[in-house]
């Protein structure tokens, strides 16, 4: 069997993998780009995520990553020549505070957001309920709202990227797991289900599973998988009105364009790659959601599923070249779908564009864990180390 040879091997065909592949093909049409995925279309984290995007963050690089990405989502049907669109729905995000501590962090974030032109605003409790009528007023301290935030279909997004990337000559193969990567001279050989693949450069986009491939190369990144569960309701009247994130409950609620409502719930669970729905999940989630959103009590639940998102010590993405020259990593830290357009552009600059001076990248470099230069995000709803999420079953 003749071995495959490529300029760039991308491992993982999720939002990061495919966006990077398409961006690289755009940037350097002469580059050979091969994407291998161990699963099927959308079988990883992208196909299991909550479909939301927002520019309401509390650090410059996250605001910028998402502003750029949202602009791309708005133009995706044209830029990726996907005429039916990706079910884009910009009905805003309401970040909800049920504690003074959270409200203080939200207020501070809005100040920074305004510096970058994010049209976010601070809302009082009654205004929050006006924006999302299903909410219960009780316990709400306040919230912030940005009308440009919203949702799109992760499935359509992946399909649009896949078709565009293939049109540009990218070779995307599913059901082809990469088992190991070995240095060979100045290049690399990947041991895969399709035999050996020789590549000049390797970009790892398998999110929480990236350490599996890096460890044998002597690179140790503190990235783990945080199992999450989600469920979706049948389509209903627009009673949610926007995407609501209850920061103190670690729950995101989005009414997507088709009218159904997606609920993503984060609990403090054993880390790993478990993709099974758990028996206690639906009951736990329904009680928790009804606690702050009583208006959904008659809503019918259609389907639930499990997923895994990546978790890093500062809950920020990992973007850049690893200690092994020629091996790059792009790990999302629970923002893969929403930041994938900008991350594609950045990684294309890094991998096939001769490098990038974009200041977004410096704080997200993989080496920050070794140097201790962590950049914790004040506005994550994923921080289970303190607050309401702790010790909940």
């Amino acid at each position: 069997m003749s071995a495959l040879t490529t300029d760039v091997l991308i491992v993982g065909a999720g939002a990061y993998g495919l966006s990077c592949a398409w961006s690289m093909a755009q940037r350097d049409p002469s580059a050979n780009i091969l994407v291998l995925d161990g699963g099927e279309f959308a079988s990883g984290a992208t196909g299991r995520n909550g479909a939301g995007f927002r520019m309401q963050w509390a650090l410059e690089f996250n605001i910028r990553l998402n502003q750029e990405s949202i602009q791309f989502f708005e133009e995706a049907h044209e830029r990726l020549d996907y005429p039916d669109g990706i079910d884009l729905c910009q009905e805003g995000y309401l970040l909800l505070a049920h504690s003074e501590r959270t409200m203080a962090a939200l207020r501070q974030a809005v100040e920074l957001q305004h510096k970058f032109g994010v049209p976010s605003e601070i809302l009082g409790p009654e205004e929050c309920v006006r924006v999302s009528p299903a909410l219960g007023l009780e316990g709400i301290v306040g919230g912030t709202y940005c009308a440009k935030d919203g949702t799109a279909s992760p499935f359509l997004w992946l399909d649009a990227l896949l078709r565009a990337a293939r049109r540009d000559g990218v070779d995307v193969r599913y059901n082809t797991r990469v088992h190991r990567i070995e240095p060979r001279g100045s290049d690399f050989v990947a041991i895969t289900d399709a035999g050996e693949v020789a590549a000049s450069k390797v970009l790892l986009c398998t999110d929480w599973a990236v350490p599996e491939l890096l460890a044998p190369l002597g690179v140790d990144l503190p990235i783990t998988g945080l199992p999450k569960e989600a469920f979706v309701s049948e389509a209903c009247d627009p009673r949610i009105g926007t995407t609501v994130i209850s920061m103190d409950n670690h729950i995101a609620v989005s009414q997507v364009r088709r009218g159904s409502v997606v609920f993503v719930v984060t609990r403090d669970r054993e880390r790993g790659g478990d993709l099974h729905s758990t028996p206690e999940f639906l009951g736990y989630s329904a009680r928790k959601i009804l606690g702050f959103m009583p208006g959904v009590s008659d809503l019918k639940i259609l389907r639930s599923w499990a997923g895994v998102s990546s978790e890093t010590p500062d809950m920020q993405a990992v973007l850049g070249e690893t200690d092994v020259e020629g091996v790059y990593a792009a790990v999302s830290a629970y923002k893969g779908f929403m930041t994938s357009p900008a991350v594609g552009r950045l990684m294309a600059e890094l991998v096939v564009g001769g490098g990038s001076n974009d200041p977004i990248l410096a704080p997200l470099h993989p080496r920050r864990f070794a140097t201790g230069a962590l950049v914790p995000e004040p506005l994550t709803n994923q921080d289970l180390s303190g607050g309401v999420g702790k010790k909940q079953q």
Partner: protein
Amino acid sequence: MTVSVVVVGAGPAGLMAAREATMRGAQVILVDEAARPGGQIYRQSAAGDNAAKIGLATERTRKQTVLDAFSEIAHQVEYLPGAAAYSLFPGPELHVAYKGATRELRPDAVVLATGVSERGIPFPGWTLPGVMFAGGVQATLKAHGVRAGDRVVVTGAGPLPVAVAAQLVEAGAQVQCVALVHSLRAMLRRPAALWAGRELVREGMDYLRILSRAGVEVLDGWVPVRADGEQRIERVTIARHSGDARPISGTERALDCDLLAMNFGFVANSELARMAGAEILFEPHRGGWIPRADAFGRTAAPGVLVAGDGAGLRGALVAAAEGRITGAAAVAVARGESMDSIEAMLGAEFAQRRRHEHFQQAVQEALRIPDGAWSWANGETICCRCECVTRSRIERAISDGHTSLNALKRNTRAGMGWCGGRMCAHTLAALTAGGRLDTATVQMTPRPVARLVTFAEVANRVDGG
């Protein structure tokens, strides 16, 4: 030691399983969707008066026998009507929505007697209002004494279209014709099997006689071509086929109607078994994706047993016999006892099951739909009704390389709607395998919930059982 058994489904298999398990000393909970016991085949009038006498006298006797057998022990069973068994986890742990709350049941054994749904085969216009499944038409007759249309065309395969057409005639409908894929005479190819089911053959003849007396034409070797109408069905076009279910051009007949009742086979309701981790086989002519079970109904999932049509389509008589066998086996499983004594004690049930399984070989001759039926749909025809996904969209995904049912679902949304893929999975399987059903096709990953439940029902918990 008192053991607990939960039975899901109150058709003949479930009722007899509940009875047998109760008589063997188990504490039994019987969970069912309907308001009254009977399932689809022995569905009772919702009003409780059973005034609407649907079906032949012999059928009603058979129904009464099963209902009476359950009634005798019903006071010892905790019966949950109008309940939705929506999740089954290994354990077994069953979640049931009942009276606005969830009962979390952790019995020693679960018997799944969940029956079948009807299988749709898409053709142009099949999603128009007024195109209904024959079993659905029958259910409204049995439960409410309501006939779903006045001018009716019935199409499909096997005995059900004939029975439903005759029941509609008796309910006062004008049945234009019954268009069958195969002649019922195809069953004559299996004379020994026919003999095994002679009482059912006699009923079939009775139904044909009703149709003949009413002057209803029964056409053999015909298939639907399309249904047309502005707001709802006004006309159906049928055509002859040449043995492969593909319509022969030039033989079309257009028939005015306000109801098209169709039955093109069945789909086992196997979501709960799949969720619990039972091993699943794909046998399209026995109900599609069905759990593999041994002679006692035991699946690969510990404590999870299956009985009746949901474990492979074989009809109500097999279901009743198998219900008793599986009910007894569930108690033995719960007590950790061997199955040795069951076969000896339930010899008559094993014999009845064998006899009627033999008869099913004859039924299969008339029921089996040739693979050409999967080409009835054109590119614009909706194949996934919940998410409105057309055949051409599915074929685009297939040509992009998304050939498993899971990948197709994620790429096209087909199978993501409220029916959980029950309605479209066979169509997707056929399209991925080049227009035929391939027994190697793996069903989509089952996702809780198997039935729609409200937030309130999920949030309110009652621990028990």
